[in-house]
């Protein structure tokens, strides 16, 4: 029997149960730990191939009902999503307030992103796209500050516009092809017409909103920066895998079609602009969480560029970078969460934390080197692959921009490291640091994530070997003249 839908159903059911346990903190904690373990097992219980809800399957040559498609690439993505979600849930166990609401929303988010990665049906994809938008705002609201509410409102206003346009795009595609199933739809969009162009255009708007590409990068940054550190870690993970899921659908539907070239260029431009805008804005920040949030946008740009190249190597590099990015960026956000327990996140008020917590500083430094693309960390491997993919299609300019952005990343990361850990501070501040504790569960999660950064940096094939077969199926080889 195929238990694939349990990846979505289990967290949704647990989210409802958790919601009913309001006020029973001890039960919530034990249950959260149990769920965190089960989440990691879930991606291994499904079978590869198509899964049709309700068992309708293919009727008279048409796919009927909701369909999911599972393969090794999607399995790797879900395993990484489950690891991050589990670590964030475990870290959240250390928080006292609103714990079950956090678990409820995190599980709904996990289920939604998993469904978006698995979906072979555009409308099902859209439904979970909406759910994840609301979940993200819900998680932001948990920080309970006025700024968080304002940011959430802005995110929802922009989301109203983007999601409505995306739904209209799906309607255009349905009107042109008569189906919502992605595998079916592919057979009916071989030749262009204005409706299909319109649908494609509006899907790109949804993609930019869901993954925080320009012009939606500022609302997304606000979302990450105003949340608690460990919540930002899961929020940026959701966004990255929404980007991967969305791009896989766009590539599956359109990659290789002659009329796709215009959109192809738009997607590349969005990726490059996100890379540059993210890093330039990060260089300007004096708030640590805002700095990290802008870097999340910049790294999403790398992922989008790799996937938008549309070649097998580009797709593998893009997805591998998404996986690496969620690992080291979650580590960095957890590091920021630990630092915020000492003295907030204003870089100019921090300093001298190295002797107070040397092991945390070392792990954060590893994550900072990983995001800057320094060997032997995982970021180096995926950025190297991305540069190779750009060179393979004869676009050295994109490879050069990637390297420039990496330099900017290194500069801002080292600036932050100096200001937080190395800058000399007075005795009074040291005493203030010593009087405040460190969240131990966050340090545990940080250790696991840093270890993954090193392991994937030395043995990247642990992940990449699972990515090539589907990337070869979706990718198209070409070379710019």
């Amino acid at each position, binding site marked *: 029997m195929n238990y694939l839908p349990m990846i979505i159903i289990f967290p949704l059911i647990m989210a409802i149960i958790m919601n009913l346990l309001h006020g029973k903190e001890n039960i919530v904690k034990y249950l959260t730990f149990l769920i965190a373990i089960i989440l990691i097992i879930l991606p291994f219980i499904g079978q590869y191939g198509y899964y049709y809800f309700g068992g309708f399957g293919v009727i008279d040559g048409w796919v009927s009902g909701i369909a999911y498609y599972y393969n090794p690439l999607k399995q790797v993505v879900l395993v990484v999503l489950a690891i991050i979600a589990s670590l964030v849930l475990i870290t959240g166990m250390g928080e006292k307030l609103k714990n079950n609401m956090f678990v409820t929303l995190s599980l709904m988010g996990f289920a939604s992103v998993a469904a978006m990665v698995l979906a072979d049906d555009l409308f099902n994809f859209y439904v979970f796209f909406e759910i994840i938008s609301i979940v993200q705002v819900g998680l932001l609201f948990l920080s309970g500050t006025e700024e968080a509410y304002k940011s959430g409102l*802005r995110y929802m206003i922009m989301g109203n*516009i983007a999601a409505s346009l995306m739904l209209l795009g799906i309607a255009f595609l349905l009107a042109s092809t008569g189906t919502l199933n992605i595998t079916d739809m592919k057979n009916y969009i071989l030749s262009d017409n204005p409706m299909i162009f319109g649908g494609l*255009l509006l899907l790109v708007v949804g993609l930019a909103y869901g993954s925080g590409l320009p012009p939606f990068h500022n609302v997304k940054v606000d979302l990450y920066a105003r949340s608690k550190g460990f919540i930002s870690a899961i929020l940026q993970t959701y966004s990255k895998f929404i980007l991967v899921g969305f791009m896989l659908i766009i590539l599956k539907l359109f990659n290789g079609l002659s009329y796709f070239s215009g959109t192809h260029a738009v997607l590349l431009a969005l990726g490059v602009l996100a890379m540059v805008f993210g890093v330039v804005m990060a260089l*300007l920040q004096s708030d640590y969480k805002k700095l990290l949030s802008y870097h999340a946008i910049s790294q999403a740009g790398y992922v989008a560029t790799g996937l938008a190249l549309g070649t097998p190597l580009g797709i593998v590099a893009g997805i591998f970078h998404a996986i690496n990015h969620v690992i080291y960026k979650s580590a960095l956000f957890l590091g920021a969460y630990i630092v915020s327990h000492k003295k907030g996140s204003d870089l100019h008020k921090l300093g001298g934390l190295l002797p107070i917590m040397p092991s945390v500083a070392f792990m954060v430094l590893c994550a900072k080197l990983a995001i800057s693309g320094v060997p032997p960390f995982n970021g180096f491997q995926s950025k190297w692959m991305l540069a190779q993919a750009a060179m393979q299609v004869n676009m050295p*300019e*994109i490879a*050069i*921009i990637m390297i420039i952005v990496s330099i900017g990343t290194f500069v801002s990361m080292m600036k932050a490291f100096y200001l937080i850990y190395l800058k000399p501070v007075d005795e009074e501040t040291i005493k203030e640091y010593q009087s405040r504790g460190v969240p131990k569960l966050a340090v545990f999660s940080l250790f696991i994530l840093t270890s993954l950064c090193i392991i994937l940096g030395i043995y990247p094939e642990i992940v990449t070997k699972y990515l090539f077969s589907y990337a070869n199926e979706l990718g198209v080889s070409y070379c*710019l003249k």
Partner: protein
Amino acid sequence: MDYDKFQKELNKDSHGDGITVGAVFAGEYTLYLLFIFGSIIIGRIYGKTLMTLFGLATLAFSLSVSPLIFKFKKENSNAINYQLFWLSIFLGAIAFCIYMTNFEFM
């Protein structure tokens, strides 16, 4: 575009220390490099020298109004009116690219 000008601007937010000014300088140059390499790749993709010249003219214009980075920061504001303005520009730009352009990409 000199160091003192940057420091003066950053001092308004009490962030005029050396490491921050250096980081902002790096951001300024990253923007210029984007214009240079962006205009080259646009010219190559569209196969038209005019597009590259247009890109380089943008670079020249941005140099004439330097420092660019503080204007860039203002445009990246969280204010909803700025957000909606850039959203409308975005919709227009991608509509233009998808509908109006026809080039050999693959």
